[in-house]
């Protein structure tokens, strides 16, 4: 199944705000940074059941779906049990599975009128635009869902036409995981939070040169269904102050940027600093990635899988930001930081659900309840509420501690890029993967792959 949507890795959901959002966003960033620095530890937000007018009553049978590996699966089921215990009369019919095909199934189910009541979702636009999702604004205003302390620009980034149809179920960003043990054993300094691509290259080089044959500094930036290169490429564009798309939904960059990007990775691969094509192609998902199979020390992917990934790795993992500041010696702040915090996993509700009050109450519970979050911890990323994050800090894995500081760092230094992505964006991600593969397996030159990508992208953008 083509991974036209691969949110686990790196996805930015961009709302439709325009210039006003920029100003608002930078203001919000400043305030949040201030707040994050001094969040009061005892001030935990409790679920506000029974907020004016939206008190849930009666019994309910909620159909819920999500994707994730075993770790997240177990934690989510425990969450559901807890909620049912606290609210007897509410039953859940859970469906969990893999990421591949999840979006397609949702589209199919919704268009047949059989959408679930509440669900994890990656790309909400097809549904929001056709009114299939519940609008949370009235509930937020009535405090039926408590969003105290949540980063407003992140929330705004996932609004559709100004309405809040989904909420972040975990804050995440594109990051790089690294194997702490390998770094320490080889005496290579650990990556710093805001390192440049040149730093990254040097680090990968150092690891490769100090390791036995068959071990590489880093995984390559692409993989068949695992990491995807399209999002990091867009960060690279942003760091050059280039928007990926024009307002009209066409490509806003040329072959120069593509060639530079492809050349960087091709050189890395040829020098042996990243894994060779065959090993990269073995990765069908993160459990088979080079960092898990013990072939590389750095792995670029979305931060939300932190606990799952650590569960699969024998060695302790660390997390750092994706490199930024291409060919500059210092990283760049603001929109040119490239990365920004988003939610790769959002939670949404069916506009036609029979139990809207229960669904909203459950969402509030999942996002804010202390007991609930002590169970789910950071299996979907950093919690939306800073108070909750503080609360669970003693309980989380070291890698998740890293994750919350990385997220905080990004929130402090980056400004989200809010631009509407065209519907064919997912197809472009697949085409980009093809281009990377063609180059890595030496089936085409960089020039040929670039022009092929550009012409196919044009077709996809105009044709659909």
């Amino acid at each position, binding site marked *: 199944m083509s991974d036209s949507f691969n949110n686990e890795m790196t996805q930015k959901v961009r709302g439709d705000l325009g210039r006003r959002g920029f100003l608002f966003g930078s203001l919000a960033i400043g305030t949040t940074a201030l707040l994050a620095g001094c969040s009061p530890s005892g001030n935990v937000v409790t679920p506000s059941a029974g907020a004016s007018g939206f008190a849930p009553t009666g019994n309910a049978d909620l159909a819920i779906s999500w994707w994730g*590996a075993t770790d997240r*699966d177990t934690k989510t*089921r425990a969450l559901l049990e807890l909620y049912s215990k606290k609210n007897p009369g509410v039953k859940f019919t*859970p469906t969990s599975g893999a*990421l591949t095909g999840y979006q397609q199934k949702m589209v199919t*189910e919704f268009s*047949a009128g059989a959408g679930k009541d509440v669900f994890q979702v990656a790309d909400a636009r097809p549904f929001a635009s056709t009114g299939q999702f519940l609008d949370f604004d009235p509930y937020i205003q009535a405090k039926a869902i408590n969003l105290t302390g949540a980063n407003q620009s992140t929330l705004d980034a996932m609004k559709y036409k100004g309405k809040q149809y989904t909420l972040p179920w975990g804050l995440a960003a594109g990051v790089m995981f690294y194997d702490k043990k390998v770094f320490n054993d080889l005496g290579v300094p650990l990556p710093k939070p805001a390192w440049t691509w040149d730093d990254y290259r040097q680090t990968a080089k150092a690891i490769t040169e100090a390791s036995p044959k068959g071990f590489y500094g880093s995984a390559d930036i692409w993989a068949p269904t695992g990491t995807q290169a399209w999002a990091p490429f867009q960060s690279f564009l942003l760091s050059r102050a280039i928007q990926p798309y024009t307002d009209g939904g066409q490509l806003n960059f040329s072959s120069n940027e593509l060639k530079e990007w492809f050349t960087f990775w091709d050189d890395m691969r040829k020098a042996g600093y990243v894994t060779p094509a065959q090993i990269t192609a073995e990765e069908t998902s993160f*459990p088979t990635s080079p960092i*898990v199979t013990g072939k590389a020390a750095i792995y670029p992917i979305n931060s939300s899988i932190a606990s799952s990934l650590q569960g699969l790795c024998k060695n302790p993992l660390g997390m750092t930001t994706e490199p930024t500041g291409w060919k500059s010696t210092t990283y760049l702040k603001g929109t040119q930081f490239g990365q920004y915090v988003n939610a790769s996993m959002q939670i949404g509700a069916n506009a036609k659900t029979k139990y809207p009050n229960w669904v909203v109450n459950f969402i509030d519970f999942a996002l804010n309840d202390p007991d609930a979050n002590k169970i789910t911890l950071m299996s979907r990323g950093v919690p939306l509420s800073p108070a909750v994050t503080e609360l669970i800090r003693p309980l989380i894995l070291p890698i998740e501690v890293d994750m919350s500081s990385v997220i905080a760092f990004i929130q402090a230094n980056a400004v989200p890029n809010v631009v509407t992505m065209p519907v064919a964006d997912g197809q472009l991600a697949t085409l980009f993967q093809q281009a990377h593969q063609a180059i890595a397996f030496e089936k085409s030159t960089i020039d040929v792959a670039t022009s092929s990508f550009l012409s196919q992208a044009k077709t996809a953008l105009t044709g659909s």
Partner: protein
Amino acid sequence: MAIISVGTSATTRVPVQQLSKRRKHSTARWILHIVLIACAIVMVYPLIWMIGASLKSDQAIFSNNSLNPFPANLKFDNYVQGWVASGTTFGTFFLNSFLICIGAIIGNLISCSLAAYAFARMKFKLRGVWFALMLGTLLLPSQVTLVPQYVFFHALGWTNSILPLIVPKFFGVESFFVFLMIQFIRGIPIELEQAAMVDGASRFQIFSRIILPLLSPALVTTTIFTFIWTYNDFFGQLIYLSSQSKFTVALGLQSFLDASGESAWGPMFAMTTLSLVPVFLLFVFFQKRLIEGVATTGLK
């Protein structure tokens, strides 16, 4: 009748001057056996390896000794783990698979036999045209009708249900079986039906009382092959079943593979092995019929 038995051979008398040749044949025979056994081992080795792997621990599967299919210690908890791994148990998956198969079998038996009888025995206008059309559908790739069928079922609200996988079978869409039954019916002596007609039996009575019983070998073949093909119809199940609770064995395996990310080798092989059991059992019990059934489609 129309069945070719694959087990017969004529006997020949052996003239004296061929006795020395016979001795050579003996050695040749031994060599033949050895080669055949060797090839047979190669053929089934992957399966044996997989069964063995399902009983090994993960380390044993990937150890240096992994080419040896026989486990040092038998580990059955791979089966237990795999059974419940994806949230929904494989019990549900097997049930769903069997439900679909049974529905398809009943549909095929009824609709294909009716159509076959009409084509084989009855005269009606445009029969030749319809017959040619039926044969033509054998050549038609399923991908041509795929999208509109999907849209059609989607408009009926049947996506994410087993209806698209069963209902068409009640309308004779599997030309292969229609054709198979036509062949069998043509082998039934026409006199039986003529006699019945003279006695005043209706067409339907002739069909149900005379034809169907005599058609039983073809019906059995149809049942067996419908089961196998429906059980393995991954594509159809993939596009029409999206809730995990409705998944079949094939889909369950696939999602198992996805979700576990292949890190749970033992349980994955255990469930894979288990998924092959129904078809294999079917084969063991109906071996002769199966092979005969395949042979009778051997047309000149």
